[in-house]
C-alpha cells in the first residue's frame, strides 16, 4: 500500500482508477482521461496534488543559502508574494529537481516533486553547511490545483470574501497567505489557474464543495497530457541528474547575473556552454496515425540520433506529440521508430498548446 493524501477516500467515492505514483496512491482518472483533459482546456478542473513536497526555508540566511542552492536567483523575488521557477543542480550541472519558489513574509516556500522527496531533502541537508537556515517540511498541508480558463472565476464564488478578492487580484506567478490558506496563481497545465495549500483537515470539505459546484476532478493521466501539450518538463522523464537545464529547454531559468553568485553547478554550466551544448529538447508532431512514446529513437538525416523523453496522444490536437532530446543541430523533420517501422515527424518548438490555443 502506498501513501495516501487526505482526499484518498473521496477519490474512491468518485470512482477513480488509482495508480502508484512515486509511492503514492493517486487517481489516474475518474472515467475518461481524455474528457478530463478537454474539461481543463475549455472550463476548469481540480487536481489533488497533495503528494507534492512542500518545504519552507526560514532563518536569517535563507536568502543567501537559496542563492547558493538554486540556479535561478531568489533575489528576483523583490517582495513577498512573488514566485519563480528554478532548478537545483548538482556539481556536474545535472538537475537534482525542479520547483516553484514562493516568497512568503518571513520564509521561502519550495514546492517540489513527490517522487524526489527523499533525494531532495538529503541533498538540501547536505548543502546546509554553516548556513543559519532551517527546513520545515509541511506534511500537514494538502494542496489542490484548480486549472482552466474558468478556474479563478469559479473558485472566487466558493470562498470567503477576502479570499475571493485576493484571487481576483492575483497576477501570474504570485501567491499570498490568507489565514491558514496559501493561494498562488501557478500551475502545470498551460492554462490559467490556482494552486492552493490548505490544512489537510480542510481539504476534503473544500474538494467536495468544488465537485458539488460542478468542477470536475482531474487525474494524473490528464495532468500528464496537459503538461506535455504545454511543453513543461517532468522530472525523472525529460530532466534528471545527468542532464543540465541548457540541454532541457530551460536555459531561461538560469540566472547568470550577478556573475559573482556562485550557485552549485555554475562552473559545470559555464564549461558546457563554452564547449558548446550538445543537445536540446524539441517538440515532435506525428502526422500519421500512431502514438509516440518515451524512449523511442529519433533519427535526423545527416545530423544523428536522439530519444523521445515524453510521448503522448494530444487530445487538443488529436494527434500524437512528444518531447525529445536531439543533437543541437537538429532539422525541421525527423523520423521516429515505432515497433520497427520509421514514421516521419515534424520538429517544432516544444510548446504545443497554451491558454487553449494551438501553437504549432
Amino acid at each position, binding site marked *: 500500500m502506498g501513501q495516501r493524501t487526505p482526499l484518498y477516500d473521496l477519490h474512491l467515492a468518485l470512482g477513480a482508477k488509482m495508480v502508484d505514483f512515486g509511492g503514492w496512491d493517486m487517481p489516474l*482518472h475518474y472515467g475518461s482521461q481524455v474528457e478530463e483533459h478537454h474539461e481543463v482546456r475549455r472550463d476548469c478542473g481540480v487536481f489533488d496534488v497533495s503528494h507534492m513536497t512542500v518545504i519552507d526555508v526560514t532563518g536569517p540566511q535563507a536568502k543567501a543559502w537559496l542563492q547558493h542552492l538554486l540556479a535561478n536567483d531568489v533575489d528576483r523575488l523583490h517582495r513577498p508574494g512573488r514566485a519563480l521557477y528554478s532548478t537545483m543542480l548538482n556539481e556536474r550541472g545535472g538537475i537534482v529537481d525542479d520547483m516553484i519558489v514562493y516568497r512568503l513574509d518571513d520564509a521561502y516556500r519550495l514546492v517540489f516533486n513527490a517522487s524526489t522527496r527523499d533525494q531532495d531533502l538529503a541533498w538540501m541537508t547536505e548543502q546546509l553547511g554553516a548556513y543559519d537556515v532551517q527546513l520545515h517540511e509541511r506534511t500537514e498541508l494538502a494542496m489542490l490545483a484548480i486549472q482552466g480558463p474558468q478556474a479563478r472565476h469559479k473558485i472566487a464564488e466558493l470562498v470567503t470574501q477576502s479570499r475571493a478578492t485576493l484571487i481576483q487580484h492575483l497576477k501570474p506567478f504570485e501567491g499570498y497567505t490568507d489565514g491558514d490558506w496559501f493561494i498562488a496563481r501557478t500551475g502545470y497545465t498551460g492554462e490559467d489557474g490556482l494552486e492552493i495549500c490548505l490544512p489537510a483537515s480542510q481539504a476534503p470539505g473544500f474538494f467536495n464543495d468544488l465537485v458539488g459546484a460542478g468542477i470536475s476532478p482531474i487525474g494524473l493521466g490528464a495532468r500528464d497530457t496537459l503538461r506535455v501539450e504545454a511543453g513543461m518538463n517532468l522530472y525523472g522523464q525529460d530532466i534528471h541528474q545527468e542532464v543540465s537545464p541548457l540541454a532541457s529547454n530551460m536555459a531561461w531559468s538560469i540566472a547568470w547575473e550577478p556573475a559573482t553568485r556562485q550557485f552549485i553547478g555554475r562552473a559545470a554550466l559555464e564549461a558546457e556552454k563554452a564547449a558548446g551544448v550538445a543537445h536540446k529538447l524539441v517538440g515532435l508532431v506525428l502526422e500519421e496515425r500512431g*502514438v509516440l512514446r518515451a524512449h523511442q529513437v529519433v533519427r535526423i538525416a545527416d545530423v544523428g540520433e536522439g530519444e523521445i523523453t515524453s510521448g503522448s496522444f494530444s487530445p487538443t490536437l488529436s494527434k500524437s506529440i512528444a518531447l525529445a532530446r536531439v543533437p543541437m543541430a537538429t532539422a525541421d523533420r525527423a523520423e521516429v521508430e515505432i515497433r520497427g517501422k520509421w514514421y516521419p515527424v515534424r520538429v517544432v518548438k516544444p510548446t504545443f498548446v497554451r491558454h487553449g490555443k494551438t501553437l504549432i
Partner: protein
Amino acid sequence: MSDIPAELRFAESHEWARLEADGTVTVGISDHAQEALGDVVFVELTEVGKVFAAQDQAGVVESVKAASDIYSPISGEVIAINEELGGSPELLNSDPYGAWIFKIKPTDAAELDKLLDAAAYKAAIGE
C-alpha cells in the same frame, strides 16, 4: 465489475470471440480490457487475407497510457477488419462488444472450446 456476455468466449489475453451463424468468428477486446487500457486513441488493424495461428499477434491497441498487442484467439484467415476503428478508435471504450476488430474464418472451429467461457473469464480477471 465489468460486462461479460455469457454467449462469448474469451482468451486469457482479453480478446473475445463470437461464433457467427455462417461459421466465421468475430473478435474484439473485453470490457475489462478497455477499462484497463483507458482511452483508446489508435488501433493498428491487421490485414484481410492474413493467416494466423492461435495466439499470433494480430494488431495493436494504443491508449493514452500504453500500446497493447492484440492476439488472434484462434487459427484462421482474416476475412474482414473494422475500418471504422481507424477514425473512431474510442468505440472500443464505449461499446467493446459492438466494436469488433476483425473477423476470421477458423481453421478448426473446435479451437473455440479451448477458450474461456464467461464464468471462467470472470474468475480469470478476479471478478
